[in-house]
């Protein structure tokens, strides 16, 4: 650190620290996912892997606006949410590899990471399946007067699930502290959402009386600032909100989804990757504002890289659960 210890930090230094922190988190997610891609391709990872690459600003921007004990629910594309909410790399990798040391003792895997310590109620492999859970957590927070809020992350595809409208209605009736964060990455698997979502996405929330906003999801500063305002509003008791984040997944729906041209063009992907990369957008802006220089970003990248590598080595070396653990944890 170059900041002198005894001089109070200026506003812009504090801000710079915060952006750098978010930068680090986004890089962590990116490198984590690249490593997952690699593990998967090397047949070291079982099951399916849905990568969050390209969408990092959403999870990070939103989770930075949360307190550690606030709740989140996540999706099949959930690694980013978990890491942004504070999950550690080693237990994440271990879970993805089905190891006993993983967050769920290997029982959950990539699509079910859950962690009470970071308020993570769990990723969910049922599209839209966690909308009730997040809303229920908000009900607890309200009843128990804990001041917590709950964030429900889901994709644009989940707008097809009726459950979402049922629970938004109740959240609105009961003024629950829950925020529905829709990650609109344009696709439901291999189908563009112009084929699956009629009408207007934001209106689907305002119709039920929710406070609804949309935000440029590749810009972590915009996501963070909007999320902060929405979280504060919701925490203060003003009722549920809906945040539509426009974003894009850079990779396939899952790692095996290689040939994508039948549902989206290479140009489209190229445009997003080169012009709308959330990590690059942030570092470019910070450099343009003289808040940090290239070396600082390089340093973060290399620090995170070695953390990720250490974590993945840990996970690879970790043992599988003993088969006789299989019928533990069925009942509490």
């Amino acid at each position: 650190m170059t900041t002198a210890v005894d001089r109070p930090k200026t506003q812009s230094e504090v801000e710079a620290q915060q952006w750098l922190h978010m930068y680090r988190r986004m890089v962590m997610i990116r490198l984590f996912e690249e490593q997952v891609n690699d593990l998967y391709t090397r047949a070291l990872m079982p099951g399916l892997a849905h990568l969050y690459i390209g969408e990092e600003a959403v999870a990070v921007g939103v989770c930075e606006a949360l307190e550690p004990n606030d709740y989140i629910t996540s999706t099949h594309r959930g690694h980013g949410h978990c890491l942004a909410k504070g999950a550690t790399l080693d237990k994440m990798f271990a879970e993805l590899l089905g190891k006993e040391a993983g967050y769920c003792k290997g029982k959950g895997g990539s699509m079910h990471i859950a962690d009470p310590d970071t308020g993570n109620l769990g990723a969910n492999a049922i599209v839209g399946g966690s909308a009730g859970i997040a809303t229920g957590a908000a009900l607890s927070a309200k009843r128990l007067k804990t001041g917590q809020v709950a964030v429900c992350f889901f994709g644009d595809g989940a707008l097809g699930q009726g459950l979402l409208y049922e629970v938004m209605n109740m959240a609105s009736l009961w003024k629950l502290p829950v925020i529905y964060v829709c990650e609109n990455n344009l696709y439901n698997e291999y189908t563009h959402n112009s084929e699956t979502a009629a009408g207007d996405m934001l209106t689907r929330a305002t119709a039920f009386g929710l406070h609804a906003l949309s935000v440029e999801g590749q810009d972590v500063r915009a996501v963070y600032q909007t999320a902060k305002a929405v979280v504060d509003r919701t925490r203060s008791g003003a009722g549920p909100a809906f945040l539509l984040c426009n974003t894009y997944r850079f990779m396939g729906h899952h790692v095996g989804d290689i040939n994508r041209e039948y549902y989206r063009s290479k140009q489209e992907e190229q445009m997003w990757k080169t012009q709308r990369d959330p990590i690059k957008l942030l570092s470019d802006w910070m450099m343009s504002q003289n808040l940090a220089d290239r070396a600082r970003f390089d340093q973060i990248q290399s620090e995170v890289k070695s953390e990720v590598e250490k974590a993945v080595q840990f996970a690879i070396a970790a043992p599988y659960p003993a088969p006789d653990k299989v019928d533990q944890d069925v009942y509490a």
Partner: protein
Amino acid sequence: MPETRELTLAEAVREAMAEEMRRDARVFICGEDIAEAGTVFKVLAGLVDEFGTERVLDTPISEAGFTGIAVGAAMTGMRPIVDIMFGDFSTLVMDQMVNQAAKVHYMSGGKWKVPMVMRATLGATRRSAAQHSQSLHAWFCHIPGLKVVLPSTPYDAKGLLKSAIRDDNPVVFFEDKMMYKLKGPVPAEDYTIPFGVADVKRAGTDITIVATSSMVQVALAAAHMLEEHDISAEVIDPRTVWPLDEKTLIESAKKTSRVIVVDEGYGRYGVTAEIASVIAEGAFFDLEAPVKRIGAMHVPIPFSPPLEDATVPNEQSVLQAAKALCGR
């Protein structure tokens, strides 16, 4: 002297909830028309006066939604009781109960718990037709992570429901709507009934009748009639179909060597199949005859009274089956 009153099953259920709500501020109920209306069956009548509308929470007609909300609330410190007016609407909550509630504990490696109760009704002969008369509990028994309770008396209903509310797992509790007015003795002091313990409702030596929910009453009536035919019937109520007290069932079967299993769910691929299989395996060398299964006819439940009456098991069908099994 411990006090015992005669309560209806509805009163016993209500009392169990009221006592648990007094005991534990985290317990709340949610469902349709449960507050001022006290449910369509009036089972919850009066609870809202004591506990208020936050703890007796009227919901929109959104079974999937409020069941999901209960799952989340249960994970985060509350102990919800979900009221599903008719068991037929279970169809709407299967994802939340089966893919969420039942699996959260396991999928999280034991880290999150889901202490919730889903109460629903079952049972036909109210002339409510095919979408309001089903007994769909077999579906839930099939699912690891859930427990399934079928009380047959006011006493059992109260003790089992209190256990359900105190359980740290999702419990599905089915009440036969035709039994709400059934009266029986219920102690005034606090008691619970453990899960997985069958109750011998009537001892006998010639034949075992395993029966669930209101079929226990049917079995008892049949057992009474069987006396006239010099057949001594033992009536066993598993009380919880999962966990299932296999031991008690098998031992009775070994003793009597003849078994009937009666359950009001559809007969095919239902509860009787599992119980009959458990007994057929466990008492294989002692059975004099195949285990006889009696369930609802394999038809959607018809509206017309003479048709509906033909579809569900009754005293006569159990009586005839028992006589046939005993060679009379």
